[in-house]
C-alpha cells in the first residue's frame, strides 16, 4: 500500500509537468491547427533561464521563497517574449501557406533553438541550486518531498489561472472566437493576429514554468532536455483531444501516471512503451481523444 501511494505521488508530480507542457501544444493547435514542434524548446529555454535567474537572484541576497517566485515569473515572461519572437519569424509569414510548410518551419525552429542553447550554454549539464528545495515530509515509508509539493501547487495555480483566463476574460473570449472561426472573428473586430501571438506566448510561459520546476526537481538542465518531454506532452495533448484545454491536463496526468506505474509494477525500460500503448489504444477507440469532439467550437 505504501509502495502504491509513493508511486501515486511520483505519478502526479510527473503528470503535472507533462500537463503544463501539453497545454501549450493544445492551445496553439486549437487556434491555428499547428503542431508546434518547437514547443519543447521553450521548456528547455525556461529551464536555462530559470537557473540563470535563480543563481543571480540568490547572489543578490534575496530570500529563497521570493527568489523562487520571482524567477518563476521572470522566466515565464522571458519565454513568452521568446515565443512572440519565434512566432513573428517562423510562423507569421506562413500564416496563409499550407499546413505542411508551417510544420516544417516549426521543426526547423526546434532544431535552431536547441542548437542555439547548446552553443550559448555549452554541452554540459547546468546545475540548479537545489539546496532550497531539499527535504520533505515522511509518512512511514512514504516520502513527499517539498519539491513535489511545490510542483503540484504551482501546476494547480497555473491551471486554475489559465482556465479563468480562457473562460472568464475578454481575451479568453477572443481566443475562443478566433479558434472557432478566424475570419468571422476578425470581421467582428477581433485582432486575430494579436490573439494568436498571445496564445503562443501563454503556451510558452507555461512550458517555461514546467522547465524551471523540472530543473529544480531533478537538479540540472541540459540543452536537449526539451525533446522527450515535448514528445510526451504532445502525446498527452493528443490523448486528451488536441485543442481541448481540460483534455490536455487530463492527458498529461494520465501519461505521467501510466509511465510511473509501468515503471513501478512492470519494468522501467518499458515505461515509454506503455505510455504510447495507452495513447494508441485510446485513439483507436476514441479517434478524437478523451475530451475531443468532432465539433470545432469547444476548442480554445
Amino acid at each position, binding site marked *: 500500500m505504501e509502495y502504491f501511494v509513493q508511486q501515486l505521488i511520483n505519478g502526479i508530480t510527473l503528470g503535472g509537468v507533462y500537463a503544463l507542457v501539453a497545454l501549450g501544444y493544445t492551445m496553439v493547435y486549437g487556434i491555428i491547427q499547428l503542431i508546434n514542434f518547437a514547443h519543447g524548446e521553450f521548456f528547455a529555454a525556461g529551464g536555462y533561464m530559470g537557473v540563470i535567474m535563480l543563481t543571480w537572484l540568490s547572489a543578490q541576497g534575496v530570500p529563497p521563497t521570493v527568489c523562487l517566485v520571482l524567477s518563476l515569473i521572470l522566466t515565464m515572461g522571458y519565454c513568452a517574449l521568446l515565443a512572440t519572437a519565434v512566432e513573428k519569424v517562423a510562423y507569421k509569414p506562413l500564416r496563409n501557406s499550407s499546413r505542411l510548410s508551417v510544420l516544417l518551419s516549426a521543426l526547423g525552429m526546434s532544431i535552431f533553438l536547441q542548437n542555439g542553447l547548446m552553443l550559448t550554454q555549452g554541452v554540459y549539464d547546468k*546545475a540548479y541550486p537545489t*539546496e532550497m528545495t531539499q527535504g520533505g515530509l515522511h509518512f512511514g515509508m512514504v516520502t513527499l518531498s517539498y519539491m513535489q509539493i511545490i510542483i503540484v501547487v504551482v501546476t494547480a495555480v497555473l491551471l486554475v489561472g489559465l482556465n479563468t483566463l480562457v473562460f472568464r476574460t475578454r481575451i479568453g473570449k477572443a481566443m475562443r472566437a478566433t479558434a472557432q472561426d478566424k475570419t468571422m472573428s476578425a470581421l467582428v473586430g477581433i485582432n486575430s493576429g494579436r490573439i494568436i501571438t498571445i496564445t503562443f506566448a501563454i503556451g510558452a510561459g507555461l512550458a517555461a514554468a514546467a522547465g524551471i520546476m523540472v530543473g529544480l526537481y531533478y537538479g540540472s538542465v541540459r540543452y536537449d532536455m526539451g525533446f522527450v518531454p515535448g514528445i510526451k506532452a504532445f502525446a498527452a495533448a493528443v490523448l486528451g483531444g488536441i485543442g481541448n484545454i481540460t483534455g490536455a491536463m487530463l492527458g498529461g496526468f494520465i501519461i505521467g501516471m501510466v509511465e510511473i506505474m509501468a515503471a*513501478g509494477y512492470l519494468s522501467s525500460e518499458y515505461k515509454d512503451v506503455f505510455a504510447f500503448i495507452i495513447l494508441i489504444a485510446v485513439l483507436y477507440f476514441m479517434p478524437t481523444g478523451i475530451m475531443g469532439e468532432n465539433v470545432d467550437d469547444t476548442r480554445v
Partner: protein
Amino acid sequence: MNRIALKVLSLALAVILAAPAAALAADVLKVGTLSPLTGPYAADGNDIANGARAAVEVVKDQGGIPGFKDIVVQAEDSICDPRQAVAAANKLINEKVPVVVGAYCSSATIPASETLAEADIVMITPASTNEKVTERGLKYMFRTCGRDDDQSKVAIKFIKDFIKGGTVYIVDDKTTYSQGLADNLEKLAGAQGVKVLGHEHVNQGDKDFSAVLTKVKAANPAVFYVSLQNSASGALMLIQAKRMGISAKILAQDAVYHPQLMEIAKDAAEGVFLTFGYTDKETPAYKAFYAKYQPKYGEPGAYSAYAYDSAMAYLMAVKAVGSTDPAKVREAMLKNKFQGASKKINYLENGDSGSNYIIQTVKGGKFTNYWNPETGKLY
C-alpha cells in the same frame, strides 16, 4: 612555342599545387581522436579530445618529434553511435592519421576499430572498458583504461569484504558498458553469496527515476549499485535517492566519475562510493599533465588522464622508432613501460594495460581514495 610555354606553365602549376600537400603529409603528424563531442556523453568526449591535445602540447614543448615539423590533433565526433563512429573512422582514414585515441562507448569503439584495423591504424582507447574491445585479436588495438570484468570483481569484493552487505539492488541503463558491468556484478554476486534483490534497467537520457527508486527503497538493500554511463544521470539519481530517503550505501562506477557529479548533486553526492582507477597525483607525470590541462580546459574529467597517457604512449613510441609504421610502433609500445599520469603504463600482448581499480568516495565535494582491494585496507 606557345605549346611549350603552356606545357611549362602547367608543369609549374602542378608542382606548386602538389608541393605543399606532399610536404604536409611528410612533416605533420596527425593524432586522431574519436569521442562523443556532442550528445549525452559530450562531457566525457570533450575530456578525451582535450587530454590528447594536452599530450601533444607537452611533447611539442619538449621539442617535438624528430622528422616531424608539427603535431596536430584531429578530433572527430562519434556521438557514441556505432554508425557515426564508423563514418568518423573513415574520415580519419581519409585524413591519413596513423593513430586514433578513442572512442568512448564500447558499442562505438568496437565497430570503429574494425574499420580502422583494415587500414592498419593504431587505436588506443582511453575509456572503453568492455572485455570484447581487446579480445578480438586486433593487432593494433590498445587499451589504457581497465576492464569491466576487473571492475566488477573490485565492486563485489568491496560489497562482501568491506560493507559486509548481504544484499544488493542493481540499476543499469542498457548500454554495452553499463549493462555489461551490471550483469558481471550479478553473476559474481551469485557466486559469492551476495543476494541480488533486483536488477532494473532504465533508459538512457531518463531524468525521472522516482519509480525505480521507490522500488529500491521498498527492497531495502544494503548496497544500491548504480551502473549508468553518464555522470549527469548519476547525479540526478543521487539527488532523487537522497530526497526519497534511501539509506542503502550507493556504489557507482567509473563513468559516473566526473567533477560535474558534485557540481550537480552537491551534498547528495557525499559518501557515494565509486570504482575508479587509482591515480597518484604526486607523480611528475600527473603534475606535467595537470599543469598543461587545467589552465586551458579546466579540472580534468574521468578520462582526461587516460587520453593523455594514450596519446603520450603513441608519441613516445613514434619518437623511439622514428616512423609511424604501425608494426614498428606496436613493437615499441609493447616494450615501452612508463609512469603515466593515470597509472603505470605497460601494454600487454593483447593490448590491455592492466586494471588499477580501487574504491573512491566523495568527501567534502572531492573524489578521495578510500579502499584498496589489494590489501583490503582504507587509504
